[in-house]
């Protein structure tokens, strides 16, 4: 073979929630170093795909396989997926009253480091790690000492997700509509945070409804989801075409699922 193993290989993935099939045969291959955008109209299954990869309990996988570095992801608990290097930025980050944001992030980082056999960071090391990240994201440091996401504005929640991503530095980052509801300044900052993470060892999947984000995070591949299937795949120019023509022309074509190598 001699070929490099793909980081993520999704093969004929079917998933349901409460008996309703949302994903109807998704196949997608993502290699290290690539940025993939997944676009599509509301209800097409974009966020479901992100959550199934992260291991959300509400979704039942009824067929297909998801391999991450050759290992079956579907057999792993959500925390084991995180330890393996999978991260999803939530579309709607969860508020957790009573849990301090900084302690939570440190606990998450150390839980992952421990699971990988690395030394845990002490408070000093942790603070020096996040100080620069906070500055880059133009985040109010006071948010660190508040309960996780509680009372945060929409933009603050999204930045907090990107902060977590930057600190946890996953191999595979999935951004689930991280751009929704952000003004252009916040969008730029969040995009810069994502771009800073781009590297030959990492892959990023950007799930978005709007082409706008892709002006700032330029993808290598764009996939269009419709009714639980990838109906079209292409390069970054596909996003521009969608911006001009909307989704309806693609939905009308009802092409068979495409596989991107």
């Amino acid at each position, binding site marked *: 073979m001699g070929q490099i193993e793909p980081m993520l290989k999704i093969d004929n993935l079917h998933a349901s929630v409460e008996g309703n099939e949302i994903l109807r045969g998704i196949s997608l291959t993502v290699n290290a170093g690539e940025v993939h955008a997944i676009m599509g109209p509301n209800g097409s299954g974009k966020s479901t795909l992100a959550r199934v990869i*992260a*291991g*959300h*309990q*509400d979704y039942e996988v009824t067929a297909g396989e998801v391999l991450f570095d050759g290992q079956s992801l579907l057999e792993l*608990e*959500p*925390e084991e*997926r*995180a*330890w393996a290097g999978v*991260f*999803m930025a*939530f579309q709607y*980050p*969860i508020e*957790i*009253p*009573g*849990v*301090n944001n900084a*302690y*939570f*992030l*440190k*606990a*998450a*980082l*150390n*839980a*992952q480091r*421990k*699971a990988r056999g690395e030394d*845990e960071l002490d408070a000093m090391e942790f603070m020096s790690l996040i100080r620069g990240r906070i500055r880059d994201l133009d985040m109010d440091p006071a948010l660190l000492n508040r309960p996780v996401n509680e009372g945060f504005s929409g933009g603050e929640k999204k930045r907090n997700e990107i902060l*977590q991503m930057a600190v*946890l530095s996953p191999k595979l980052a999935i951004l689930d509509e991280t751009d929704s509801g952000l003004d252009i300044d916040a969008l730029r900052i969040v995009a810069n945070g994502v771009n800073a993470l781009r590297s030959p060892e990492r892959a990023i999947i950007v799930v978005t409804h709007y082409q706008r984000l892709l002006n700032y995070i330029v993808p290598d591949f764009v996939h269009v989801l419709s009714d639980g299937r990838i109906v079209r795949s292409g390069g970054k120019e596909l996003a521009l075409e969608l911006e001009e023509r909307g989704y309806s022309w693609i939905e009308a074509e009802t092409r068979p699922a495409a596989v991107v190598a």
Partner: protein
Amino acid sequence: MSGVQTHDGTASHCGRLRERVGRHEPAWLTDFRDRSLARFEDLGFPLGSAEEWRFTPVGAIAETPFGPADVPNEDDIQAALARALYGSADFARLVFVNGMFRSDLSDVNDLPRSVEVGSLRNACQSYPDIVRANLGAVASGGPSFTSLNGALMDDGAFIHLPAGVLVDRPIHIAHVSLSGDSPIGVHPRSLVIVGEGSSAVIVESFHGAGDMPYLTNGVFEAVVGPNAGLEHYRLQMEAESAYHVGRTAVRLARDARYTSHSVAFGAAISRHDLGAVLGGENGVCTFNGLYMGDRRQLLDSHTVIDHATPHCESHELYKGILNGHAHGVFNGKVFVRKDAQKTDAKQTNQALLLSDTARIDSKPQLEIFADDVRCTHGATVGQLDADSLFYLRSRGISLEDARSVLIHAFASDIIDRMSLAEIRSQLEGVLLSSLPKTSTAFWEMAE
């Protein structure tokens, strides 16, 4: 009264006990005991058909022949006290062992001279007029257990602040019960009077040891004078073999403030009746409650806030954590009387069920007779939030840690409202030790 009857043998049993406790007492106190006994005999132990007791069977209490307490050996007392006094070295303290005052174990130094802090039994001799005028005046009526306490009452605290005294030093009333070879019944009774413009912090705790069943049937009554303040901690940390019944009755004068922090962690069956009457304008009453049960524990909190006058505020937040086959009961009554306009009352109770077999019966009861008031209540019962668990786990925190941290956060909300750091850290310790074994990730989040 329907649904209530006297169990066979109860009256004669109580009568015999009554003879023991009533020796060498002033006639007015004997009379108080007689009246209490008569009411108890009339009402009997409450049965399950009585609305206020429908979830809390007291048959085991009625049928167990709880005798008077022996004097336990000193080593056992010291061991129990070590648990009961925890970080409260700086508190003034009154220690009661099996209902008997132990002045040698108590410390009431460093309190203002005008403040009386001691045993109620002694106060019956030294301050008969004050005790006589107030005993049973606030804790009137109520469950028949209150009358049983009146009939058989052992010792307890007498705390009297005249007008204009601020007592910074918390006063700890430590009740320790140690059963011997047979079940014992202890009926502690405390009376607290906070004079006009005065304030005090009182910690009441109940600890016990041993496998032999024992009964604690306590009554705490307090009068909080005009513009006075009382912060009251009630820590029910009884042994698993215990039956614990408690009544707290408080009356607030105008501009008075009363805060109750009521914690129930122990006992096989625990019932606490907490009631406050806002008897003057501009009073503020706060009830914070936390109960935590496992195995087959039954933890029952009945609260009443009576807005009898206008312009008063009440804030009530009760939280319960139930695991195993534990059963929680919350009944929260808020009365707003016809004249109590501009009342601001808020009640919230939340229960977390950690197993399929844990159970909660929760009943908010607002009875509002005034028309210009703001009253809200909310109740939530449920498991740990699945989305919160997923969020934590998706960041690499194990399921066990995620569960523990969410339980901890739920309970800390109550603990964090307590102003005494010593109590907070003690309760934190109990809480943490009750959570599943956890890793450093949990400890970091629980800081």
